[in-house]
């Protein structure tokens, strides 16, 4: 190590410590992240392509895939709508209790998914607060798709809001005020001024929300009832197959979700690198 190098990179040290740090990091990545990822595809394809395809095309698997898509298609727009509405109220206006509202939006992140399922059982279960109302009207929430939607909405609640609120806060409301002064109504101001400013952050939030909604397990498992072919989402279907020692089929379905997770990561990275400035105000957690 020459003295010159020492001045340039006082902390980095020499090549030797670089090698040590990079090797350690690679080892951590291999054990913690790559092994599980590889295992999913390895086990899924282990008994050949035919069985893999068969596992994905059997009726229960297809029902699970359809249910997962349906749930995601309902949950993500709902939470997006909430994200935009709450962000509009919080970032464009000053009112009492704003910070309380902000804190409450983040609340579901610090709650166990199982508790997220539990709270809806306490409301809609056979001994739930609203059990008699549900009995009279014949509406079924638990052990049916509405319950799965509610539990999934709960766990993905903050995703969109927390991506766009910091950004809209940083952008302020001058542009919107100008548009309104020039005679644009609220909707027009939102579509023409606000939305273009936040579209990439919004997309980022929608992406994270979809990924979580598709893969949610704990909350959904509490409210779904595990009815095969009816209320089993993909993660629940994976669990059922695994507990029946049908490992290959279980990993085959799991590999679909893992693939979706990888696509999410790629899309997320692209958004971060391409539109860094437009996402700038957000904090990664």
């Amino acid at each position: 190590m020459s003295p010159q190098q020492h001045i340039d990179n006082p902390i980095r040290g020499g090549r030797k410590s670089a090698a040590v740090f990079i090797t350690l990091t690679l080892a951590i990545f291999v054990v913690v992240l790559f092994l599980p990822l590889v295992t999913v595809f390895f086990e899924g394809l282990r008994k050949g392509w035919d069985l893999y395809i068969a596992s994905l095309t059997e009726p229960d698997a297809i029902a699970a895939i359809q249910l997962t898509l349906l749930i995601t298609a309902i949950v993500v727009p709902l939470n997006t709508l909430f994200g935009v509405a709450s962000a509009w109220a919080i970032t464009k206006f000053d009112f009492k209790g704003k910070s309380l509202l902000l804190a409450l939006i983040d609340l579901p992140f610090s709650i166990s998914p199982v508790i997220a399922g539990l709270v809806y059982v306490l409301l809609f279960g056979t001994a739930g607060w609203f059990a008699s109302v549900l009995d009279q009207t014949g509406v079924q929430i638990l052990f049916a798709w509405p319950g799965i939607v509610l539990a999934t909405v709960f766990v993905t609640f903050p995703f969109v809001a927390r991506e766009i609120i910091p950004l809209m806060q940083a952008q302020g409301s001058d542009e919107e005020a100008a548009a309104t002064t020039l005679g644009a109504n609220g909707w027009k101001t939102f579509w023409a001024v606000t939305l273009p400013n936040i579209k990439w952050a919004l997309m980022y939030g929608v992406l994270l929300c979809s990924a979580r909604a598709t893969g949610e397990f704990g909350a959904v498992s509490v409210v779904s009832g595990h009815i095969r072919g009816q209320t089993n989402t993909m993660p629940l279907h994976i669990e059922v197959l695994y507990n029946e020692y049908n490992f290959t089929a279980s990993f085959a379905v799991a590999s679909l979700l893992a693939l979706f997770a990888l696509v999410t990561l790629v899309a997320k990275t692209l958004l971060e690198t391409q539109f860094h400035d437009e996402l700038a105000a957000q904090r990664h957690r």
Partner: protein
Amino acid sequence: MKAVATAHGRTGPRFRFREPSALPGFWPALGFSVFYLSAIVLIPLAALVLRPWEIGLSGVWAVLSDERVVSALRLSFFAAFAAAVTNVVFGLIVTWTLVRYEFPGKRILDAIVDLPFAMPTAVAGIALATIYAPFGWIGALFEPFGIKLAYTPIGVYIALVFVGFPFIIRAVQPVLQDLEREVEEAAATLGAGRLRTFRKVIFPAIAPSLLTGFTLAFARAVGEYGSVIFIAGNLPYVSEIAPLLIVQKLEEYSYAGAAAIGLAMLVISFVILLVSNILQVALTRNQKA
């Protein structure tokens, strides 16, 4: 809307719910947000807070002092703590490498850090159970020594390390990136050794974000369910986690019992979050002083 605007137009010391603004849409946006928040989060959580007491204080105490519940809560919190500590070590090494060194494939590694966020917990769960089972890729390495990883508390810990992996890295990375090299260089020029520079210059700067990441990883791990139950073996008193007990109470239709455990988890978590926040404030103040 109009009436409200005129009411707010008046000056004086009156209580004002909101400051006047030229922009429309406040009431619809706030109204929908509050309604949605109440329906999805607040009313359901009210049920969690109120329902345990249906069995009375003594009933709640009976549930929570049950040996099996106590050991499950202990396991959930201790394993989460151990996993978060492990992730502090892993996180420091990985963040340091990602921020300070250039090497091929770095961008890919950086992107894949978030895998545990993106990968569904059940998928991670069955993969980890397979790897660490006695005949799995890693489990088989330990088997000859009589060490079992999966289906023991160690399995719970392993799953929680996976789940909490990204939190510390994502919290510390931006701070370490913004840390001014000049300060370190000055310390080095003044004769501080590398370890000393780390201890005196870098560590104090990243400590608040390290604590943030630690707390997030810990909070997430305490409530984690999907990735744990496959690898844990779920042996009562040994490798059974608290969220699993909630599920079991529900299967026995003991709503109040399930709610009691859930509420206990929530209260303990909030106390820990509170302590962390207080520490956070102290750390930041220290740094500024």
